[in-house]
């Protein structure tokens, strides 16, 4: 950890400390709306970071990450509703289930040499399969959804994640910060370098004696487990789960936008991407509402255009540019 801090140069340290202090102190001045937008930003930075681990570092394209969000959310919500087990314990079950699914998909894919587009399709297939399955499962509420009751007397029970905006703001901030730290640590570990080797040239990596199968499995399992924690957050923040919403392929795509815009395979890319995209979406909603245009698809069109522009103009993402301009980056990957 201390080595990680030493790897950041002077200017980077100042920026990092300033940003973190500002975000910690912000609830003193900001109103509920600003906090809710920031909570959303942290959430997308967090799940984007989880996805980035798999795609950006290990080079395995998953387009079904909504599966792990949904599983995490459903497992923790069901434990809470049916057995009264709180989310701080439930998160372990959620992580275990999602990691199990991730391991199954990874095993099927990597054992049989399914890569690239085919692997991406396998992940979509599993997510869609699960979505339709949950639509027909009665004990999860089926297509009618699962609701976490809002109880006045339980408000403030932070140990059960029952609370207001402030609780979720700090929780999301903590999640996003931990994810950045974890990815930064992993990126400089043996495993991280093996991921890069497999991403760049799997054949060459195997020739060097790297067990590509094990390395890729590690990426899927860690990424799935991290994403599931995001799912627990989602379930207790929004208090409702619908299969058609949490497992939808558009959710999987929404979740990968931030790392792509910010910069794949960089530690700060997903964070920057989330900070760029989410407020832009909010501004767009506000502007269209002000203009009196009632068009539910506007935000998505905007995301589509953003994707195309980014991939045409800056395929490596925004963060490498910003880092270069500010003279940041130093030795951090």
């Amino acid at each position, binding site marked *: 950890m201390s080595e990680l801090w030493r790897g950041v140069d002077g200017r980077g340290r100042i920026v990092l400390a300033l940003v973190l202090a500002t975000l910690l102190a912000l609830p003193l001045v900001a109103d509920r709306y600003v906090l809710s937008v920031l909570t959303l930003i942290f959430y997308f930075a967090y799940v984007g970071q989880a996805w980035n681990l798999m795609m950006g570092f290990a080079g395995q394209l998953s387009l079904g990450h909504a599966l792990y969000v949904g599983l995490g959310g459903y497992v923790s919500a069901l434990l809470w509703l049916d057995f009264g087990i709180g989310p701080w314990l439930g998160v372990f079950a959620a992580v275990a289930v999602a990691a199990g699914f991730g391991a199954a998909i990874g095993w099927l894919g990597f054992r049989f040499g399914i890569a690239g587009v085919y692997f991406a399709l396998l992940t979509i297939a599993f997510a869609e399969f699960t979505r339709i399955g949950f639509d027909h499962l009665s004990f999860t509420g089926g297509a009618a959804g699962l609701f976490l009751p809002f109880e006045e007397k339980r408000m403030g029970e932070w140990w059960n994640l029952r609370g207001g905006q402030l609780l979720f703001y700090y929780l999301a901030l903590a999640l996003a910060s931990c994810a950045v730290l974890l990815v930064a640590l992993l990126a400089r570990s043996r495993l991280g370098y093996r991921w890069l080797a497999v991403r760049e040239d799997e054949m060459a990596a195997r020739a060097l004696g790297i067990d590509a199968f094990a390395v890729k499995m590690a990426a899927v399992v860690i990424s799935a487990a991290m994403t599931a924690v995001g799912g627990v957050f989602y379930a207790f923040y929004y208090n409702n789960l619908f299969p058609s919403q949490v497992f939808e392929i558009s959710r999987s795509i929404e979740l990968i936008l931030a790392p792509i815009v910010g910069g794949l395979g960089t530690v700060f890319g997903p964070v920057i991407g989330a900070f760029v995209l989410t407020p832009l979406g909010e501004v767009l909603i506000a502007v269209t509402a002000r203009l009196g245009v009632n068009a539910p698809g506007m935000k998505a069109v905007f995301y589509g*255009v953003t994707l195309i522009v980014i991939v045409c103009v800056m395929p490596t993402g925004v963060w490498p540019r910003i880092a270069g301009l500010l003279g940041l980056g130093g030795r951090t990957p």
Partner: protein
Amino acid sequence: MWPIYLSVAIQGVLTGLVYGLMALGLSVIFGVVRVVNFAHGEFAVVAMYATYVLFTAFRLDPLLALVPLAALFFFVGYALQAALINPFVGRPEHEQFILLVGVGIIIVNVLLIGFGPDARPVNLSYGFDSYEIGPLLIDKPRVFAAAAAIAVAAALFWFFRRTRTGTAIRACADNLVGAGVIGLNVKRLYALTFGLGLACVGAAGALLVTIADPVPMLGPAYTLIAFIIVIIGGMGSMGGALVGGVLIGVSEALAGFLFAPSMKSMFSFALLIAVLVLRPQGLMGQRP
């Protein structure tokens, strides 16, 4: 009981042939350009809406609308490849993916803004007619649609086997460097191929209105169906696309009949997972 099952299965075959035509476009594009068209189903839905507009405005039968739509989509595809996608040929897979996902998202939501979320059915005068063959009952519009799908597919097969341009495109698919060396204009042939792929989609979209009512959200669903079909049949294999289409059509029809219509695509995904694991190159594909 068996005549009902057989009727359902035959309906599935007919539907599957139309799906197969749509997937054929995807297969041709992937087989030659090596770009995965992740907006494939979205283009099919655009064609469905175009058919709806032509039908409500001019009473043009979908079977006739197929011809101008295929032509129009050919030019759209040509322009798209020439302007947007050619620079992405040979770039990392995920970048091509993102580009076309972006195109798909835009299409779905522009349709949503333009037409709203409600279905726009094309009510054909012969929409509920059916043929009675002994104890079997078969929908008339689906028979026509399947016949038209076979005709378009046959024309495409003929083009690739018998014409000089078709042979040149196959040369690009077989050996890109060699094709460049003997002086083929690869970029132009790629644009041509993408145009042909989208012409299939345009034709298939016109026929799909006999199977489902156009809704914007069908786009991603059809993209997935086309992908499943192409992978089951074998990427790049033209015959495989039709075989895969029929297989998915029958599995959807039987699953919808025996279980619940909303569960039908679950069986398609199960089939996809099974094929990916047991025979990743697809039923009719060659091992790389």
